[in-house]
């Protein structure tokens, strides 16, 4: 339930929309996402196309940042080598809350072509940081980037902010 979704079900009599503070905060968080771009390999080349005028990534409210202090999510695009994994871990830790992760491409999802004999490649960035959205592809098309971004916005607009533990505990019981 996002704030804009509530426009479809106005208060009886119409004209009045009631929402929660959580909706408002999630609305702001999901529609203004600055990202720490972590281009590691060929997925980053595809990401250039994503940022250019054809696909226009900025319409999602995203601005590329070079410092984790100003970033809301980190976009890991490419092969995560074991050397780079330590840096990614530090950069993720240095981001301010709330923080999210998008893993782009087969390499950062699961190791990609290096899944078996890549002695120097981390088999999936989710081994070191919690990933919110996986974008499959080798490399993914820019349309796939857009889909991933929309999925992340959906995830943020549904997240619990207040009484997080209570809500999550209720969800666990239902499962």
């Amino acid at each position, binding site marked *: 339930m996002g704030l804009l979704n509530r426009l479809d079900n106005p208060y009886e009599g119409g004209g009045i929309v009631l929402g929660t503070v959580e909706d408002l905060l999630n609305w702001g968080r999901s529609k203004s996402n600055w990202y720490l771009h972590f281009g590691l390999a060929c997925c980053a080349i595809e990401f250039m196309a994503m940022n250019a005028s054809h696909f226009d990534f900025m319409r999602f409210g995203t601005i590329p940042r070079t*410092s*984790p202090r100003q970033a809301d999510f980190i976009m890991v695009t490419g092969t995560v080598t074991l050397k780079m994994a330590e*840096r990614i871990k*530090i950069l993720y*830790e240095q981001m*301010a809350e*709330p923080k999210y992760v998008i893993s782009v491409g087969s390499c950062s999802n699961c190791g990609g072509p290096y899944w078996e004999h890549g002695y120097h490649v981390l088999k999936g960035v989710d081994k070191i940081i919690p990933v919110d959205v996986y974008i499959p592809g080798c490399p993914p098309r820019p349309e796939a980037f857009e889909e991933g971004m929309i999925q992340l916005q959906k995830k943020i607009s549904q997240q619990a902010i207040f009484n997080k533990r209570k809500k999550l505990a209720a969800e666990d019981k239902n499962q």
Partner: protein
Amino acid sequence: MISEFGIILLFIILGVVFVGIALAAAAIVRPSHPNPVKNSTYECGEIPIGEPWVRFNVRFYVIALVFLLFDVEVVFLLPWAVVFKQLGWFAFIEMIVFVIILFAGFAYVWGKGDLNWEKPKPHIPKLEDLVVGKKN
């Protein structure tokens, strides 16, 4: 009555209050989960070595001064070079005189030995110096 300086005081008070409100609002709204890694200096993911506040040797100051001299010289040389053809020989000779004056200063600094890297000469006492009654 508020005097002229009273208005400045008002501005200072308002500035402090305004910044205070902004910081307080941010402190109420934002999530705060500090940890040692997050609080460490951002160095592009590297683990920082040593303090970021590095001290420079005081002996660099002469070099910095001489650099400033030639830095300003370039500022004068560039517009001259742009309109070099229109100005003709007179400006060329004038500029040569200007550069010669600057290089005279440079030669003076060089000749004076100010560009020499002075190494500290610690006085290490030798056994002979300690002998009583001996004069150097």
